[in-house]
């Protein structure tokens, strides 16, 4: 708060002050959401407008895919083992039969874990990466230099990252699904002695699962780069500003993924699975 604001707040009545304090909480949130929507709508406007820097799109796809592949594989690999470990012991205790486990696990991977956990990991890896990159361009005035040369920063920087992210999030989600299913199968086979052929069971998969999987991957792929770019473009100050931007990117992106997951899971339940 600046000195003037402090003086202004001090002059209010207690009731007024309580109302004003609500603003302290909500105004920054609303400002940030509007700014994210602004960046998002501009990015979509420019995504359908020529010229698109296809070389840059390819390069960004390589960066996103290459930089996150090992990370996503490690995390989802361990997740697969954890999930089968936990559910295996419980299933043995309650149901006593592990034959249906593979089919259920595959369904759950499609609907929930593969796209969402991949997106959470991309929010940390790609989200912080984009925010740091664009943020340091802002604080070193490179973004101003772009604007002075009539290169719109959102068209020049955000659109290639958006297009690359949409494709690579889907690809990485597919990779994640295979890895998590593979490690889960490994644990089921070694710890619980479930036959590989029994575990690999697609009987419970429906079109709805594939649709929800694709919808989630698409939504996350769009949201993460836009939120991260907004955080980067809003950076100010020196290295401190870049630090704040990256923190903001990972928090906002993870939160957005969780909210989208909630909404899309609800939609999926109502339309396909109930």
């Amino acid at each position, binding site marked *: 708060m*600046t*000195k*003037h*604001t402090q003086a*202004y707040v001090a002059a209010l009545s207690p009731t007024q002050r309580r109302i004003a304090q609500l603003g302290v909480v909500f105004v920054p949130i609303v400002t940030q959401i509007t700014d994210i929507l602004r960046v998002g709508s501009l990015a979509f406007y420019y995504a359908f407008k020529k010229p698109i820097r296809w070389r840059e799109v390819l390069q960004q796809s390589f960066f996103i895919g290459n930089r996150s592949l090992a990370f996503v594989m490690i995390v989802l690999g361990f997740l697969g083992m954890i999930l089968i470990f936990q559910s295996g012991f419980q299933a043995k205790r309650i149901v006593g039969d592990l034959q249906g486990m593979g089919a259920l696990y595959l369904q759950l991977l499609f609907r929930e874990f593969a796209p969402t956990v991949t997106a959470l990991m991309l929010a940390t890896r790609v989200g912080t990466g984009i925010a740091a990159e664009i943020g340091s*361009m802002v*604080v*070193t*005035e*490179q973004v*101003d*230099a*772009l*604007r*002075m*040369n*009539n*290169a*719109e920063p959102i068209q020049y920087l955000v659109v290639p990252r958006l297009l690359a992210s949409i494709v690579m999030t889907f690809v990485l989600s597919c990779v994640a699904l295979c890895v998590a299913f593979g490690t889960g199968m490994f644990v089921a086979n070694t710890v619980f002695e479930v036959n590989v052929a029994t575990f690999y069971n697609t009987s419970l998969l429906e079109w709805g699962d594939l649709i929800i999987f694709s919808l989630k991957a698409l939504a996350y792929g769009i949201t993460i780069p836009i939120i991260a770019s907004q955080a980067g473009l809003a950076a100010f100050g020196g290295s401190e500003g870049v630090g704040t931007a990256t923190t903001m990117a990972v928090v906002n992106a993870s939160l957005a993924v969780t909210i989208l997951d909630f909404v899309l899971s609800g939609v999926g339940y109502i339309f396909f699975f109930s």
Partner: protein
Amino acid sequence: MIRIAEVYKYRGHECVINGVNLVIPQGTQVGLIGPGGAGKSLLMKICAGLVRPDSGSVLIDGTEVVGIGDVEMTSVRSKIGMLFQNYALFDFMTVEENIGFPLRQLGGRTEEEIRDEVNRLLLAVDLPNTQKLFPNELSGGMKKRVTFARAVIANPPILFYDDPTAGLDPVTSGKIFALLEERRARGGTTSIVVSHDILGMRDICDSFVLMDHGRIVFSGTREQIEASTRPFVGQFWRGEADD
């Protein structure tokens, strides 16, 4: 010609540009001086349309830049060259690509022509054989010269220099000021130079504007400033500590 009228800008509740009026005639070079935090760089960014003021008007060659859209701004910006304080060199481009960027954005030139122009300018700023280097391989003085080359390559009629010698040693500063002077001597460019280096600026500007706390406190030629009896003006010009 640049005409700034009644420009105000607030940061929170603090007034950082406080009612500035200024006219810069065609073909002159104005030195914008003042203590740190006086609002010099901010005023320059307002003129370039990079920062939107809260009120007021800025006319560049008769076009109002406050509150116009990006499309109309395109034609204004292609008239302006800008040298940024923090170099603002694109770190993912080579020196050659950085300097050629404005020409490539303007369009209408072949790659061959752009390369020739870049090579000619690199010789002029005394940086031969640096075409393929990246900005992080250059020293501070070299980066400033590359930024200068990028600002002037399209021969813009208006030039903004934001602290062109910040953080440079006196010898390198001298070289940069010599480049600015050479540009001015050609005639035809209207320019603003923001700097703390009064010694270096004395001989290369047609007039000076002294700012403090977001206001213009004095403007005039070198002779007028030196003749001024106001203590703040004299102290700042001679670099004396105030007491």
